[in-house]
């Protein structure tokens, strides 16, 4: 799947979350940049999934194992708890069935790292409120009719969904572009939200220490 051109979630934030030597499945891995960093800095055993041929070629050129497939088909061939991390980077808002994918991700991954643009970001709210138009800005550069983002949500929406689905949130990072946003401001001022979710086959709580800076 195409990475959202206007958004570049700080990959290093994700790299920091991942334990060295673990196994990682990156869904919508794009050109493999995140996996490349994880493999080199955290010595992970990584594998990517992407829909686009051009991305597959780039991953192979980087020596990354990659599978050309559609996330809307789900993860049925992946064993439960078969990866330490399943990552969905900037892709949740592009899939047709996000709830099914989340269910599958927490089944396959012991932990799930998911990030997405926060539609509740103050600039979006103001564009809608004052101009009565769908937000189009540097963080969301598409018109409503040709956007790959078919399932936008706000930070609050996502937290509510996790509660409804019974998925525990282990950790959260809120960013305004590349800078951290303090918790009290994150609903309004974060452009990007990254959650670490607990998978169905999570390791014991004592082991889920997160080495964030």
């Amino acid at each position, binding site marked *: 799947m195409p990475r959202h051109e206007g958004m570049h979630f700080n990959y290093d934030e994700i790299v920091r979350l991942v334990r060295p030597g673990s196994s990682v499945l990156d869904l919508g891995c794009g050109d493999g940049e995140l996996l490349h960093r994880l493999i080199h800095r955290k010595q992970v055993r990584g*594998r990517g999934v992407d829909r686009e*041929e051009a991305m*597959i*070629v780039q*991953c*192979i*050129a*980087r*020596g*990354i*194992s*990659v*599978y*050309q*497939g559609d996330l809307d088909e789900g993860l049925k*061939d*992946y*064993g439960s708890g*078969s990866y330490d991390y399943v990552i969905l980077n900037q892709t949740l808002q592009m899939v047709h069935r996000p709830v099914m994918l989340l269910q599958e991700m927490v089944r396959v991954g012991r932990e799930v790292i998911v990030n997405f643009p926060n539609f509740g970001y103050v600039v979006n709210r103001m564009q809608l409120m004052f101009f009565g138009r769908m937000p189009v800005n540097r963080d969301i550069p598409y018109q409503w009719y040709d956007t790959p983002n078919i399932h936008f949500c706000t930070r609050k929406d996502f937290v509510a969904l996790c509660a409804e689905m019974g998925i525990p949130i282990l950790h959260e990072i809120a960013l305004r572009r590349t800078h951290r946003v303090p918790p009290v401001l994150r609903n309004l001022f974060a452009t990007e939200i990254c959650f670490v979710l607990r998978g169905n086959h999570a390791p014991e709580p004592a082991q889920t220490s997160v080495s964030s800076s």
Partner: protein
Amino acid sequence: MILVTPNDAVFDDGIELDSGKRFAPISVRYETYGTLDWSGSNAVLIVHAFSGDAHAAGYHTVEDRYPGWWNEMIGPGKPFDTNRYFVICSNVLGGCQGTTGPGSIDPATGAPYALTFPVITINDMVKVQKRLIDYLGINRLLAVAGGSMGGMQALEWAVSYPESIASAIVLASTSRLTAQGIAFDAVGRNAITSDPRWNHGNYYDGESPARGLAIARMLGHITYLSDESMGEKFGRKLQERAAYGFDFADQFAVESYLEYQGGKFVDRFDANSYIYLTKAMDYFDISERFGTLEAAFAQGADRYLVISFSSDWLYPPYQSKEMVFAMMKAGKDASYAELTSPFGHDSFLLETEQQGRMIESFLETTYAKA
């Protein structure tokens, strides 16, 4: 124009076949392109499909009209870059293009083997290739690459000689033929054996079962194409006439094409080889020997590139996916692409650009890691 000379290697002691018999002697026709480096680590084995041969690239003489069958992929600066890699291609056991097959002379009788040739498997073909690789002084192949029946051989290499290959490149192939695939093979064999000239395989001193073989090939060709590619290429056009004449001289363009392909094939292919090779493909099932596909790959080679084609209904993408998931579960480094192409099974011979880029990148990273 790159000129190549075919070579023959003879193994007097032959091989032990899967059927339990020893078969000897075996002569192998092969060609090589590029230069083996000092450490012998840049060798790539190309394994051909059902009707292919050892002539994968270049030309034999300056008068040749056509180059080898995969010339687009093999050569200087091409995906199998002969400036970097030493590329080998040999004709398969049971074939009819230089390697010992049913049409070869049995030294014990002085006559062609015909049906006294033993029933062989894909694994038997690979055993012969292993002998050739040893003979050429290569310890470990950088990759074994092939499409269709060639992909089966690449898979067989991966699970039978994992220590001898760094990677396998499997195109438009399967770990086992579908019932549908076996059915088409069976009809092809029936077309041959129903031709009175086949004479239980003994036709080498007279006329060959050309009609039966041509019909088998016509059937095969249908399975290599797709509804879309046939529609695009021929549509419902008549070959000679503008309007229907309502007599049997009316020939649709697709009929004419199949006749042409069938006729061309009988000049270069032996009917008994058709029978033996299709049977070998029908037997092929790497999960059988190891219990499951996952178990087969668990003890197999470490790196794989698997490519399927969207319109290939003979070796459908779902079978490639099944293999790749078994490789993944076995903890192997496996990449998979399903290329969009209208050309059916033949895509692996035609879509050289997309798959070429993937193969080139895959070989490069394999070479860097090896």
